[in-house]
């Protein structure tokens, strides 16, 4: 997301366009497209000179502006003749609608920001520990399995942004033994799996070696057997019934 940094306060081409329009005190419904286009292009050129990476969205917008500009130059009648549907339609209309919509979005964002601030001034306290009022045994937990919990954890890890996630899985080195039981656990759920399915998610050299040794070990103790339809085909790993 380098453009979010490099373009500082501009959250995209619409944001930049709105800024240009606002700065000139232009009527949003009657944008002098030639002027705005050249300013927009100037901005992109300035960024190029600063060797800043320009996000593709800005280039797409530049192209859109140029297209609108050229259509504005065409005589209306000629445009109408070429395409009935665009008869009398201002080529800027779609862009204007988009800008207006984005402007509402910015308004709502500002609204949320001030509410967020107001709410940050308000403090609560954790719920009271009601255990002293509750002498009975804990209420049984129903309809929830261990796998639901593990699944919740997996979803959590997926939700954690990538930069945080590195720390999340770091230092978690699998032993061959652990890997054997993890493979068995998975095979008990699936009965069989391909080599790729079992090892495709392994991310480090260490874990790859551990997983491979674990597979060999499982074959040796007779927990699994492997089949391969043809050379270089995916290997299928099947759990032996005794271990199911």
């Amino acid at each position, binding site marked *: 997301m380098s453009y979010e940094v490099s373009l500082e306060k501009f*959250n995209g081409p619409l944001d930049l366009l709105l800024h240009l329009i606002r700065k000139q005190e232009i009527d949003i419904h009657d944008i002098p497209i030639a002027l705005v286009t050249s300013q927009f292009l100037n901005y992109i050129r300035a960024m190029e000179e600063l060797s800043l990476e320009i996000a593709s969205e800005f280039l797409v917008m530049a192209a859109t502006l140029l297209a609108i500009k050229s259509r504005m130059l065409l005589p209306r009648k000629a445009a109408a003749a070429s395409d009935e549907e665009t008869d009398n339609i201002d080529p800027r209309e779609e862009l204007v609608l988009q800008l207006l919509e*984005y402007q509402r979005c910015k308004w709502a964002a500002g609204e949320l*920001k001030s*509410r*967020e601030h107001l709410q940050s001034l308000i403090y609560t306290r954790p719920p009271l520990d009601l255990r002293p009022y509750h002498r009975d045994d804990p209420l049984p937990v129903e309809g929830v399995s261990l796998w639901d919990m593990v699944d919740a954890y997996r979803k959590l890890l997926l*939700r954690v942004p990538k930069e945080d996630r590195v720390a999340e899985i770091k230092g978690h080195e699998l032993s061959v033994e652990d890997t054997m039981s993890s493979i068995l656990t998975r095979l008990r759920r699936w009965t069989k799996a391909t080599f790729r399915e079992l090892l495709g998610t392994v991310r480090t050299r260490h874990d790859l070696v551990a997983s491979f040794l674990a597979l060999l070990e499982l074959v040796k103790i007779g927990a699994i057997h492997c089949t391969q339809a043809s050379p270089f085909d995916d290997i299928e790993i099947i759990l032996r019934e005794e271990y199911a």
Partner: protein
Amino acid sequence: MIVPLLAPLEAVLFAAGSEGLSTQAISEVLEVSVDTVFELLTRLKSEYELREAGLEVVELAGAWQIVTRADCAPYLERMATAPSAPGLSQAALEVLAIVAYRQPITRGQVESIRGVQSDRVLQTLLHRQLVCEVGRQDSPGRPILYGTTPYFLQTFGLSSLEHLPPLPVLDETSEDISLFDLTPALPRD
């Protein structure tokens, strides 16, 4: 007749803390009708206001709770030990605003309004549990639909989605009102 129940109401709201209690839950604990609960809550609220308490009774995401009054914040900041969660970036607020007003909405639709990729921002909002997946759109690729969470309502001090401030009207014809002058008058509760 309901006055003797004001003290118990205060006690259970206090006990519920940041979890709060729904009107329904209060009615079960106090063993009175939902209507009576509303009456009691209104009374307790105005009692707090009258005595200019440091606390107030509010409804957040459908749950009633007792919270500190905003003007006491300077004192609380002094004693707060836990750093508060970092504020949201402009980009995050934009995406959140679109999801809030347009839910359920796909990432693609969010991006077409903003004019930029928004996957990273959406990811952050998902992680902070302000936004969640609410289903799949019945269209090619079955894209994920996003909506806001109850935590979103709490974070922004809303009792429900209906309490979102109304969006300014998109009026293309009137040229005299510049939309830029639409300074957001803060809606009061």
